[in-house]
C-alpha cells in the first residue's frame, strides 16, 4: 500500500518515517549504525531523519528535495512510504508523491500548530482525491505531552479541513523522536486511547477493489508482430475497472466501433478467459477493426463513459509558463493524447499564499483553479466521481507535464440549453479594468447573492429588508430588490403567463450575475423556490455565489439551504443568526478561500 507523508517544513516527517523503519525492524542494521557513527564523527546528535537524507545536497540544505520512497512491512502488509517534501519550492514533488498514495499521514508540530503547508497540503490531498487522512500531532514531548495542546489543535484543524470537504480518519499525538505512539502505545500520554501510527496504517483501506465497477479499458496500443511470425492483432492496455470475459460485446469510444472479445492473451501463464481490474492485459477481437490508442473499450451491456470535447475540471498548475487561454497544449487523459485549449477560468487559488480569486485570467505556477477546457476533437473520459482513473488528466506544455487535474463535468454532449447559454454568455462577457477581487478588497467584504425563500406569509420579506438595513448601517454595499417590481419593469414584456416562468427566472439570475459582479451583496426574496429554481439561479449567477436562506417551511429537498430560520423567529434574533452566518462565511472567505 502506498502512503504519502506530508506536512510543514521541520514538523518531523522524516523522523516519523525513520522511526517507523527502525521500530518495525525494516532497516538494515548497518544503516542505523553507520548514520550514528557519522553523527559521532561530526559531533552532532543523531536524528532518525538522517536515515532518509540519502543525498548529499539534501543534507547540506537540510530539506527533503524530492519524494523519496522507502519500503517496510508490518505484520499485516507491505508499505511504500512516500516522503513528500514540505518546502513550497518542491510542490511538484509533493504532488508526484501524493498522487500515488492511497492514504496520507499529515504531520503537524504540536508547538507550531497549523502552518501554511498544513493548509496547502490539506488542499492538495482533497484535490488529488485522497480521502484517508490521519493527522499526526508531533513533538508532543516539547509540550510536556499535554492533552489540551493536542485537542485544541485537533479541533482547529478539523474545522479547517471541513471547508475542504475532508474529514480526517483520526488524529494521533506522537513524539516521533522518542517513538511515542509510533509502534507502541505511549506511557507518557495515558489520556490517549486511540491507535498507534502503525496500527492506523494497517487499518487504512486498500485501493477500492474496482472489479465490481463498470469495465474500463483504455487502449494503450495495438500490437501485431507479423515480422516474428505472429498473426495475432492484440489490443493492449491495463484494465482500470470491472472485468470482461471471452465472448462479451465491446464498444470503443469515442469511435463507437463494436466487436466481440475473441481471446485474452498473455505470456507464460495458463490460458485465460477473463481479465479484471488492475491487470495489464491483451485481447484479440472477432472482427478486424481500425481502432486507435487512446480509445476506451467498454462493455456494450454497461453504461457508457463520457465522450466530448469540452469539460469542467479542477486543475493545478506547476508550469514555468502560466496556463493561458488560446494557447494550444497537449492533454493526456487515460491513454488518449489530444490538443487542448483553456476556455474559461471560473476561479483560482494561489497555493503559496492561499489567496482566492474569481477574476484571474491565467493560472500561474502553483495556482489551483476550476477551469473549462476544450479539446480539438472528442475524447472519451469519465467524471472523477464516476471513475477516478479515467477522470484524471495532465496538461503538457513545451515537453513538460505542467499541470494535472480531475474532470468534474462533461460540458459538451448532453449540455442543456441553459448551460450552453451560460457558457456563451461567459465567453462574451466583457470585463472592465477593475476586477471583482479588487472591488471586494476595496469594499472590505465579499459579493454575494442572498436569496430568501419559504412559503407565503413566513415573514421572509421583512426579514430580508431588515438584513439590508443592518448591513447598510455597517457600511456594507448591499441592495434589496423586491422581485414584484420586475413585473412592471424588466418583465413588462412578459405578461402573466406561466410559460414565461423560465424567462423570469433567467432574468433574475442574469440580474444577480451583474449585481454581484459589481461587488454588491444582492438580496432578493422568492416565494416557494424549488430545487430546480435554485439550481437555475445558481448556474446563472455563476461564477459568483448564491446563499439560500429558508424561512419557515420550504420546498427544497435535494438542495439544502445555507441557513434555516424557523417560522415565527423573532426578527432581531433572526438577523443575528444571519449576521453570524455571514461572519462565518466572511471568515472562510478571508481565511480559507
Amino acid at each position, binding site marked *: 500500500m502506498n502512503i504519502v507523508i506530508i506536512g510543514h517544513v521541520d514538523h518531523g516527517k522524516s523522523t516519523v518515517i525513520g522511526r517507523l523503519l527502525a521500530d518495525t525492524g525494516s532497516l*538494515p*542494521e*548497518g544503516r542505523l549504525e553507520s548514520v550514528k557513527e557519522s553523527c559521532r564523527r561530526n559531533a552532532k546528535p543523531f536524528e532518525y531523519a538522517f536515515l532518509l537524507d*540519502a*543525498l*548529499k*545536497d539534501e543534507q547540506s540544505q537540510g530539506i527533503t*528535495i*524530492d*519524494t*523519496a*520512497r*522507502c*519500503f517496510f512491512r508490518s505484520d499485516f502488509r*507491505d508499505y*511504500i512510504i512516500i516522503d513528500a517534501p514540505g518546502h513550497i519550492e518542491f510542490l*511538484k*514533488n509533493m*504532488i*508526484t508523491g501524493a*498522487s*500515488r498514495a492511497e492514504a496520507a499521514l499529515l504531520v503537524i508540530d504540536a508547538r507550531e500548530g497549523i502552518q501554511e503547508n498544513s493548509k496547502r497540503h490539506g488542499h492538495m490531498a482533497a484535490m488529488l482525491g485522497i480521502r484517508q487522512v490521519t493527522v499526526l500531532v508531533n513533538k508532543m514531548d516539547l509540550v510536556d505531552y499535554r492533552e489540551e495542546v493536542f485537542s485544541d489543535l485537533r479541533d482547529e484543524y478539523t474545522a479547517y479541513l471541513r471547508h475542504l470537504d475532508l474529514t480526517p480518519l483520526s488524529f494521533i499525538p506522537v513524539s516521533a523522536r522518542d517513538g511515542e505512539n509510533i509502534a507502541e502505545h505511549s506511557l507518557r500520554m495515558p489520556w490517549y486511547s486511540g491507535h498507534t501510527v502503525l496500527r492506523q496504517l494497517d487499518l487504512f483501506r486498500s485501493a477500492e*477493489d474496482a*472489479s*465490481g465497477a463498470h469495465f474500463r479499458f483504455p487502449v*494503450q*496500443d495495438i*500490437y501485431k*508482430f507479423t515480422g*516474428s511470425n*505472429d498473426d*495475432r492483432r*492484440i489490443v*493492449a492496455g*491495463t484494465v482500470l475497472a470491472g*472485468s470482461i470475459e471471452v465472448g462479451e460485446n465491446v464498444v470503443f469510444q469515442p469511435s463507437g466501433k463494436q466487436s466481440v472479445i475473441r481471446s485474452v*492473451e*498473455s*505470456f*507464460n501463464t495458463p490460458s485465460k478467459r*477473463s*481479465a*479484471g*481490474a*488492475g*491487470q*495489464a492485459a*491483451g485481447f484479440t477481437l472477432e472482427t478486424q477493426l481500425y481502432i486507435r*490508442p487512446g480509445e476506451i473499450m467498454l462493455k456494450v451491456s454497461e453504461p457508457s463513459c463520457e465522450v466530448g470535447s469540452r469539460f469542467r475540471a479542477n486543475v493545478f498548475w*506547476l508550469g514555468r509558463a502560466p496556463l493561458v487561454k488560446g494557447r494550444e497544449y497537449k492533454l*493526456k487523459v487515460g491513454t488518449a493524447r489530444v490538443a487542448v485549449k483553456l476556455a474559461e477560468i471560473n476561479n483560482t487559488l494561489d497555493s503559496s499564499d492561499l489567496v482566492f480569486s474569481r477574476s484571474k485570467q491565467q493560472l500561474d505556477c502553483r495556482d489551483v483553479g476550476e477551469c473549462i477546457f476544450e479539446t480539438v476533437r472528442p475524447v472519451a473520459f469519465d467524471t472523477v466521481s464516476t471513475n477516478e*482513473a479515467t477522470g*484524471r*488528466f*495532465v496538461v*503538457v506544455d513545451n*515537453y*513538460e*507535464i505542467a499541470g*494535472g487535474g480531475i474532470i468534474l463535468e462533461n460540458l459538451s454532449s448532453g449540455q442543456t440549453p441553459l448551460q450552453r447559454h451560460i457558457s456563451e454568455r461567459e465567453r462574451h462577457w466583457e470585463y472592465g479594468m477593475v476586477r471583482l477581487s479588487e472591488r471586494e478588497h476595496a469594499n472590505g467584504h465579499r459579493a454575494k447573492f442572498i436569496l430568501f425563500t419559504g412559503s407565503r406569509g413566513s415573514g421572509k420579506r421583512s426579514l430580508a429588508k431588515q438584513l439590508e438595513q443592518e448591513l447598510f448601517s455597517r457600511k456594507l454595499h448591499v441592495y434589496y430588490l423586491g422581485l414584484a417590481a420586475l413585473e412592471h419593469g424588466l418583465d413588462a414584456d412578459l405578461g402573466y403567463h406561466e410559460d414565461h416562468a423560465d424567462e423570469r427566472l433567467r432574468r433574475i439570475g442574469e440580474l444577480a450575475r451583474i449585481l454581484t459582479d459589481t461587488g454588491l451583496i444582492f438580496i432578493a426574496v422568492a416565494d416557494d423556490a424549488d430545487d430546480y429554481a435554485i439550481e437555475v439561479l445558481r448556474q446563472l449567477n455563476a461564477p459568483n455565489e448564491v446563499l439560500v436562506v429558508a424561512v419557515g417551511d420550504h420546498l427544497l429537498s435535494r438542495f439544502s439551504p445555507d441557513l434555516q430560520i424557523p417560522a415565527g423567529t423573532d426578527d432581531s434574533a433572526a438577523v443575528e443568526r444571519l449576521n453570524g452566518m455571514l461572519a462565518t462565511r466572511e471568515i472562510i472567505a478571508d481565511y480559507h478561500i
Partner: protein
Amino acid sequence: MKTYHMDHLDRLESQSIYILREAYREFKSLCMLWSIGKDSTVLLWLARKAFFGHVPIPLVHIDTRYKIPEMIEYRDRVAIEWNLNMIYGENRDAIEEKRTFPDGNTDRITCCRHLKSEALKKTLSGQWPRFRMDHSLRKYVPDESRTPYTGVIAGVRADEEGSRSKERYFSPRDSENSWDVGDQPPEFWNQFKTDFAPGTHVRIHPLLDWTELNVWEYIGRENIPLVSLYFNRGNGTRYRSLGCFPCTTPIESEAATVSEIIAELADGRLSSVAERSGRAQDREDGGGLETLRRDGYM
C-alpha cells in the same frame, strides 16, 4: 461477480508492463539496457510479458572486457534463444590504451567513468560504433544505425541506494546525460514524461518500486533463467551483484537455488549487508553511487 485477487508481485508486474508499453508507444528510438544482472533480466522478461512473447526493443549491453566471462556467454546464449535484437558498445580507446583499473594508471571510479559511463553515453548517442547480433551468422557485426536512442529503459530500483530512491519512472536527461535531481518533472497518477526536447533523452525505470526480495520472488515464480554466478556452485560463495571481475567479489553463501536465496534474504542474514557491498567502486564514491549517477552511470 468474479474477483480478481492480485498479490503484491502481480501489482508490480502489471505496473511495470504498463510503463514498458507506454515507453514503446511513445519513443520511436527506444532501447533497453541489459547488464546481464538479475534486475535487467527481470526487465527483459517483463518485456516478453508486455509484448506477448516478443521483445520489440533493442537490448544494449556495455562491454568493458572485464566482465566475468560467464556473463558474456549467458548473454549471447539468451540473445539467440529469445531472438533478441542484441547490441553492444564499448570504449575501445580506453581499453586499448589501458586507461583502466587495476592494470592502468587510474582508480576504480575513473575506470567506471571510462568503460561504463562514457561508453554508455557515446553508444546511446550513436557517436561510437555499435555491434549487433546477426542471428543468421550467430555473431556480432557492426550496426549500421547511428540513430541516437531517445528513450532508454533501465532496471533501476528505488531500494538499491539513496540516490535511486529519488528517481522517477520517466526521468529526463539532458544532452550531457546529466540528471538534475532537484528539478525533476512531476508524475501525476499514471501519466509520465513522454515528451522530450531535441537533444535530450528520457530514462525509463519500470522496476523502480521493486525490492531485491521482490525481484527474487518473481524470478522464482516465473522460473526466469539467470546467469549461474548468482548461485553457490559448491565453493560456498555466490555473487549478489554482478560487475567487472577486478571490482566485484562474491559473498559467502550456501544458497544454490532461487528459493534458498529468498530464504537467505528473508531470514535477515544479509540485512546488515548492502546489496552492492561487493562492488568496490561504490565505496570509493563517498556519496554512494551519486557522483557516477549524475554523470550518467546506471
